[in-house]
């Protein structure tokens, strides 16, 4: 492949600003790009044999409950629609993952498409990450409504995103956004995070303290 060729992730240029915002908030919000994860779009009939074949090949089932994600074996399968999923794996494994999926579905009717570069992945975490995202996401992000294992396609500010709650303890989300919108969204998140990097904002009696 092209290992020796210089590559650039869509948000590579934002790394220093993400780090500064994270530092400035004292860790209340953490922003980072997860570059180059493998992402394979899978479309098939969840009741048909292709779904079973995928489960055997990946070791995890494609979730049938809407707006949920299933994780295991270093992979995550995100529900995008009743016949559509996004399978996410470690960086550099897209070719292998695509082959495994294509091999598994074999002659069954299914669509397997490498979309690793289609979306950029942002990590938004920290104790105030829910607050930060609530400036631009209309969904209820309360842990009772959007806890671990939940994912959703929705709007964040004016960009469509796939939002998924991390499994780890503490609030944290992955935000997947079409790469052409990634710069816009990064700027938006940085601007919104200024709220949480303001010194002493809690002492002003503003609602931000709640």
């Amino acid at each position, binding site marked *: 492949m092209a290992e020796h060729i210089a590559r650039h992730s869509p948000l590579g240029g934002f790394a220093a600003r993400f780090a500064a915002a994270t530092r400035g908030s004292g860790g209340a919000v953490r922003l980072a790009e997860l570059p180059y994860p493998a992402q394979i779009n899978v479309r098939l009939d969840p009741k048909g044999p292709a779904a079973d074949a995928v489960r055997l090949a990946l070791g995890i089932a494609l979730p049938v409950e809407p707006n949920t994600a299933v994780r295991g074996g270093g992979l995550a399968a995100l529900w995008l629609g009743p016949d559509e999923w996004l399978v996410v794996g470690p960086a550099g494994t897209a070719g292998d993952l695509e082959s495994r999926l294509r091999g598994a579905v074999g002659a069954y009717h299914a669509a397997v498409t490498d979309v690793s570069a289609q979306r950029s992945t942002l990590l938004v975490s920290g104790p105030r990450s829910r607050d930060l995202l609530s400036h631009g996401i*209309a*969904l209820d992000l309360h842990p009772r409504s959007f806890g671990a294992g939940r994912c959703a396609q*929705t709007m964040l500010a004016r960009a469509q995103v796939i939002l998924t709650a991390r499994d780890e303890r503490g609030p944290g989300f992955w935000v997947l956004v079409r790469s052409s919108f990634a710069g816009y969204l990064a700027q938006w998140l940085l601007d919104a995070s200024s709220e949480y990097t303001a010194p002493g904002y809690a002492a002003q009696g503003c609602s931000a303290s709640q």
Partner: protein
Amino acid sequence: MLLIPCPWCGPRDEAEFGYGGQAHVPYPEDPTALTDEEWARYLFFRNNPKGPHPERWCHAAGCRRWFNAVRNTATNEILAVYRVGEPRPVIV
């Protein structure tokens, strides 16, 4: 901002949806068999009732599924949603 219950994703803000006009207007089996007037009726004519109206909606910013909804055009209440291919529910 309506709260539209996507049959797959549950209630979401209206802003996530695209509107597809009157439901149950199937593409004619054989368009060439239609007169110009019949074809024009398929293309251009839709009901405009005050009250319950079956409509097509697409959860465009979410699961991208098309579905049908019966909406009261006078009050904006969504009286029922159902998936493509399911029969129109009886609204009492």
